[in-house]
Every structure is written in C-alpha cells, then in structure tokens.
C-alpha cells in the first residue's frame, strides 16, 4: 500500500484534513526532491536542520515536513520571516555547509515540503497547544482571552502564582530551553501568562498586553531591539512584570511532535515521526565572576 503514496498525495491529504479554508499564495510548497516519488515515511521538524535530516534518513523516512525552508533563507516570493542580511545564492553556493546539506538531501532522495502559514492557522493550533502542554499551562487556559488574541496565535493562561525566577526555572526544564533569557525582577510574583511560540514582533506584543490583563510574556524569539525593548519599557511603566524568551527552537519543537501525531491520525500507510531537534546553542557561559 505504501508504494502508492506519493509526496503530492500526502500534501493533498493534509490539505483536505486541515480545513476548508486552506490559504493559497503562501510561502509553502516543495523545497527539494520529487513530489511524485513514493513516500517511505514522514518526518516533521520545525526546521529541516542537518541533524533532523540525518534522523529521518536513519528512520528511512524520505518526506520531511517543516515550517522553515532548508537553506536559512526564503527563496520564494512570499516572505514570512524578518531576515537580517539574507544570504545571496552566490554566497550560499560557495558555503561548505550549503554544499554538505544539499548533497545529503540529493544523495538520499529526500523530499522537503514546507508547511508554514496553514500549519499556524490549523484550527486545533497544535503549535501553541503543544507548547502550552509542555510548559504545564494548558489546564489553566483562559479561553476567552485566548480567543481575543486569535489573530496573533497567542494563548492566555491564569497559572497558580509563582515567582518569575521559578517560572523561568520550570520553563527551562520542561521546554529544554537551556539558553532562555529573562527580563524583569526575578522575585516578582506572576500568574497571568500570554504565550506565543516562534518569532515575535511588536504588533504581537502590543496586542498581547493591550488589555493589561497579562503580567508575564512567554515567547519564542522576540525581535531584539524592537519587541525586547518594547517589553522592557512595558516593565518600566509598571504595566508588566516579566518576559521569558525560550528561544525559537525550544518554542517550536513541541509543535513538531504534535504535528506528527495529527498527520498520523489520517495517514496510516507509512510511519510519521516528530523530530525535536533541541536548541542550536551549545552552551551559555556563566556570567561575571
């Protein structure tokens, strides 16, 4: 049966399961490989890092589904990420890392499909809910407040009161976010959390704090010198108490596993495996003697 399942067919099934309101004109689509090739297994990862591809190869999965494109830049006409110094193709092609990754994909006949805007728009919001469960917030959700922030994809939770330092420690452990960074007085008590995975821009933060019913933000990667400084000013104003930045990867990993579970619920022809790749950082130095 598996022999008849092509990558195109997998994408068609995802489209039909996702919702009737599938958005066109997005950044999504095949990035590498032959869409008509037979799928031997499906791996999901937030970004197709070399380590994720190697894991997929070891599992004999040849279709990789990810939010991000493989070569650290968007190559299509629809841009969803805010780049800083997008590498030119000339620079990329001269890079030993690009050459290595391209060869790995080609040699193993990997097929890469990007699932981005429509993934973020899935009605079940696996990206947010998986992270909320990982952090232990899900049971404390304030659904009305979450609904109000639907346009940003954020969730709002009223958790048992805890110090910012303890909340950060718990988040570091549960999300495996060893390189997380925190703003705010560690001793402050917090209980009303707005949570948003991924890259965070000013308009997201402004929306999350506008109603003044949130005292701590837990985010993936707030844009530095914009969203970070907005949060700092928000804390200086006395309107908020803290922000925990988990890092982009730590905030996206849980969603990859959740996505694999969702795809596996309607594709049983082949194995579907979520690959959590962890954060890219090797270590954070201990600071100031």
């Amino acid at each position, binding site marked *: 049966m598996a022999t008849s399942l092509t990558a195109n067919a997998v994408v068609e099934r995802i489209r039909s399961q996702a919702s009737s309101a599938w958005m066109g004109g997005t950044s999504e689509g095949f990035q590498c490989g032959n869409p008509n090739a037979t799928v031997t297994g499906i791996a999901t990862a937030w*970004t197709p*890092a*070399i*380590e994720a591809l*190697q894991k997929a190869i070891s599992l004999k999965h040849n279709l990789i589904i990810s939010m*991000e494109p493989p070569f*650290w*830049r968007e190559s299509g006409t629809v841009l969803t*990420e*805010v*780049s*800083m*110094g*997008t*590498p*030119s193709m000339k*620079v990329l092609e*001269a890079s*030993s*890392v690009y050459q*290595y*990754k391209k060869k790995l994909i080609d040699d193993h006949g990997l097929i890469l499909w990007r699932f981005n805007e429509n993934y973020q728009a899935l009605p079940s919001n696996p990206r947010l809910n998986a992270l909320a469960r990982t952090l232990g917030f899900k049971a404390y959700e304030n659904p009305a407040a979450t609904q109000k922030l639907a346009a940003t994809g954020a969730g709002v939770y009223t958790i048992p009161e805890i110090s910012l330092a303890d909340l*950060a*420690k718990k988040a*570091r452990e549960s999300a495996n976010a060893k*390189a*997380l*960074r*925190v*703003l705010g007085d*560690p001793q402050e008590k917090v209980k009303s959390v707005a949570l948003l995975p991924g*890259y965070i821009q*000013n*308009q997201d933060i402004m929306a999350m704090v*506008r109603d003044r019913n949130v005292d701590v933000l837990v985010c993936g*990667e707030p844009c*530095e*010198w*914009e*969203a*970070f*400084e*907005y949060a*700092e*000013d*928000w804390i*200086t*104003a006395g*309107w908020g108490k803290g922000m925990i930045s988990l*890092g982009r*990867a730590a905030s996206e990993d849980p969603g990859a596993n959740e996505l694999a579970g969702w795809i596996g619920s309607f594709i049983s022809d082949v194995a579907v495996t979520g690959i959590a*790749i962890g954060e*890219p*950082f*090797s270590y*954070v*130095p201990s*600071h*100031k*003697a």
Partner: protein
Amino acid sequence: MQISRREFGERSLVAGAAALLGLSAGPVFGDTPVTAQQIADKILAIMGPAWDPASYRDTFKMGDPSTAVNGVASCFMSTFDVIKRAHEKGLNFVITHEPTIWTDADLLPPVQNDPLYKLKLEYVNDNKMIVWRTHDSWHKMQPEPMNAAQNKKLGWDKYALASDPRACQFPPMPLRDVVAQYAEKTPTESVRVIGNPDSVVESLTRCGHSCEQNIVGLEKYDVAISIEIREFETAEYGRDFLASGGKGAMIIASHESGEENGMEYFTSWFKEHLPGIHIEFIPTTDRLWTL
C-alpha cells in the same frame, strides 16, 4: 533647572549659571541658552563627511529641538528606563544610538495609538526632554568607533587586524576563554555559544546582525561574533555548520553588548569636542538574565 533668557538677562549671569551646570556660553553658542538643535548641529559639523543628511535614523525623535539643554545623557538606546534615569539626573537631552519607539525608523503609524508610546511621549514632553539619535554618522567615523571601543574594553586592540577592522588574530586558545572574556567584559548576560568550548581558536570577526556576514565570516575566521541575529537563519546556520563538520564557532550576544562600549566612548569624544556642555553616559544594559 532650565535656563531661560527671561530669567537670566545679563550675559554674566548666564555664564555664571551655565558654569554651575557645567554649561558654557562660549563662542559657538553665543550668549543664549544652548538648545538641543545647536548641540546636534555642532556634533554633525564636527563629524563632517561622516554625516549623511539623508539618514532617516539620525534625526530628532521626541521633544522640541529648540528646548534649552540642562545636560546631555548619552546612551545605547533611549529606553523608557534610560529616559527616566536621565531626567532624575537633571539631564534633559538624550542622545541615543538606537531607536526610541521600537523600530529602526522610529515609525509612528504602528504605535501612535499604543498606550505605552503615549506614556513615553508624555513623560518626555512633560519634563521638557529631547531625544536625538546618532547612528549612521557615528558608525561612519574612522576608525569605526564601536569595534574600536570594544576592542579596547576587551583588551583585544593588540589583536586587531589592520586589513580588517572587524577581525582579530590572537594566540591559540580554547573557545571557552574567548567567550569568557566577552561575557565578563561586555554588559550583558545574553551570550549564547554555538561551538565546542574546548576547540582551539585563533581568529575572530564581528558579523553585526547579518546572516550573510556570519556565513562569509565563518569561511575565513574561527569565530563569528554577532550582536542580535534572527535565530531561524543565523543560529540555524551555526547548528548546521557544526553538523556538517565545520571547525569554528558562533558567539551570539545581545545588541547592547556590542555597542554600549562605543557609546561610552561617544561620551568622552563629546567631552573633548564640546567642552563645557555637561554630558553623562547612562548605561542601557539589556537587563536580561539567564539561569
């Protein structure tokens, strides 16, 4: 503390009061109270060719430029905290390197209905403060002051390469030692490393915020130091760099860590060129902490 002509009609009184505040009514500014506009004009005149009048960055951001200046506060970024600390020190002219209202171009439309913007603006106006930015012009000074100041602070000026002012060549040492020097001497806890701490390195380059600069930098030097990057591109390139067998490392730090030293240096530059105008450096710090 504001000096106005109305209160001090006599030149001698103006000079006396100005001297008390560390201001001078010297030939450059005549006998009227020094305004923010005059100070900015004077700075730009001294910077000369480094100043691009078309820069959208190097402009007044808040307040009335014709306001008399009690004292100058220089900083990396005019956060609300920095503005408040400047005011508490009696300094009403904030000279910042980075934006005030959270975007590179200090765009008004995205924030004009935002309550935090209104609060910050009200604070500046109520306290007769002025905010002006010097970014492009300061970076164009030779030698480039941000890297030069940081090299000096880190004791790396002896390693700086004449051929590439962003780069350093130094005796071989473990990566962890380079990282420790950076983490101890720059004002941030936001230092994240991609690389093996035991690997031996002997050169580094600064890659700003740019993914492309990191890619190019790692082809030529052992360590790429960047301040404020986008994780999906640059940090993920670093992860793949290691996974593909690359020998080298990335040190990813906060934007503040790379430029606070340079704005501290701006403060001494200002004192040298505008003696008699009272200026104090207000550290922004990113105020981040880690576990």
